[in-house]
């Protein structure tokens, strides 16, 4: 780059009219030997380039990855998590239902077992039971007969009243 071109380019730079390519050209130029008058300007451009060497420490990536992996999962993952929770709830309910049913079955067996092996004995027992019912029934019938007394009495009274009414007419 000759001095005229350099001067023009620098003027453009100070008035913010240079393109990125032209600015790179200036940076490239000032990397080399420069006239004494431009020493300070060269420092500025070297400074810009030197700043690019500043980097974060090596362990940065690993630290970030560690943090983002342990962070709560995103939306799609949390949806699966919720589904899994619902499924787990259903499993618990179904399992509990099954065990309760089993317990109920054990506590109240549905099958009737034979109580007697000898038919004669069974017949006697049946007869005894039927006699007991019969006796109780008769006893109750006798007692119920007393209620009839009331009915008859009520009918009599009603009959009288009807008679009275007829007389009144």
């Amino acid at each position, binding site marked *: 780059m000759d001095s005229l071109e350099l001067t023009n380019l620098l003027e453009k*730079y*100070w*008035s*913010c009219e240079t393109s*990125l390519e032209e*600015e*790179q050209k200036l940076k490239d130029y000032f990397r080399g030997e420069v006239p004494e*008058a431009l*020493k*300070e*300007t060269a*420092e*500025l451009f*070297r*400074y*810009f380039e*030197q*700043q*690019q060497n*500043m*980097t*974060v*420490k090596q362990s*940065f*990536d690993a*630290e*970030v*990855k560690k*943090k*983002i992996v342990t*962070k709560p999962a*995103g*939306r799609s993952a949390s949806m699966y998590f919720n589904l899994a929770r619902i499924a787990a709830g259903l499993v618990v309910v179904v399992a509990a239902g099954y065990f309760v049913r089993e317990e109920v079955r054990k506590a109240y067996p549905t099958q009737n077992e034979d109580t007697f092996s000898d038919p004669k004995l069974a017949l006697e027992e049946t007869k005894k039971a039927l006699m007991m019912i019969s006796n109780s029934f008769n006893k109750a019938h006798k007692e119920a007969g007393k209620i009839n007394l009331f009915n008859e009495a009520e009918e009599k009274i009603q009959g009288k009243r009807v008679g009275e009414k007829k007389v009144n007419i």
Partner: protein
Amino acid sequence: MNIESFENRVLPTKNKLFRFAFRLLGSQEEARDVVQDVMIKVWNGREQMASIENMEAWCMRITKNLSLDRLRSKQRKSTDPIEEGFEVRQETLTPYERTELNENMQRINQLMTALPDKQRQVMHLRDVEGYSYNEICEIMELDMSQVKVNLFRARNAVRERLVKLNAYGLS
């Protein structure tokens, strides 16, 4: 966005984000924290960010906002009056950071740090990182004329001081 595209599109921007955050905050440690926050923010919002065309500019924008938030909360916390002048930000550099810059570079660094926030950011984005004006508009959330005005002022402030340094040999 899955972890693979995160590694390919977002993680590689880390150094640019770091330099930008450092330019604003003046502390490597804080800049690193901010970049880490940006990464986590992008990852957590990855579903919404699928449509973003220029992921790098987007990350830079988040970096700028998080850095400014940090600066603001720092200013709120400190009871000291805000100092002005050249050396203020230089003091925030650790001795290790200071040795990284040689004397000349330190001088330029002082010129840059003395610039107002917006001018400094725009100049950094253009001259250090080589972003186009459109990208700078996107990152800074400014229109083209504001970007150009800020860059113009920044470059000329630096130029003026360089000339003075040259003329009087002040350093």
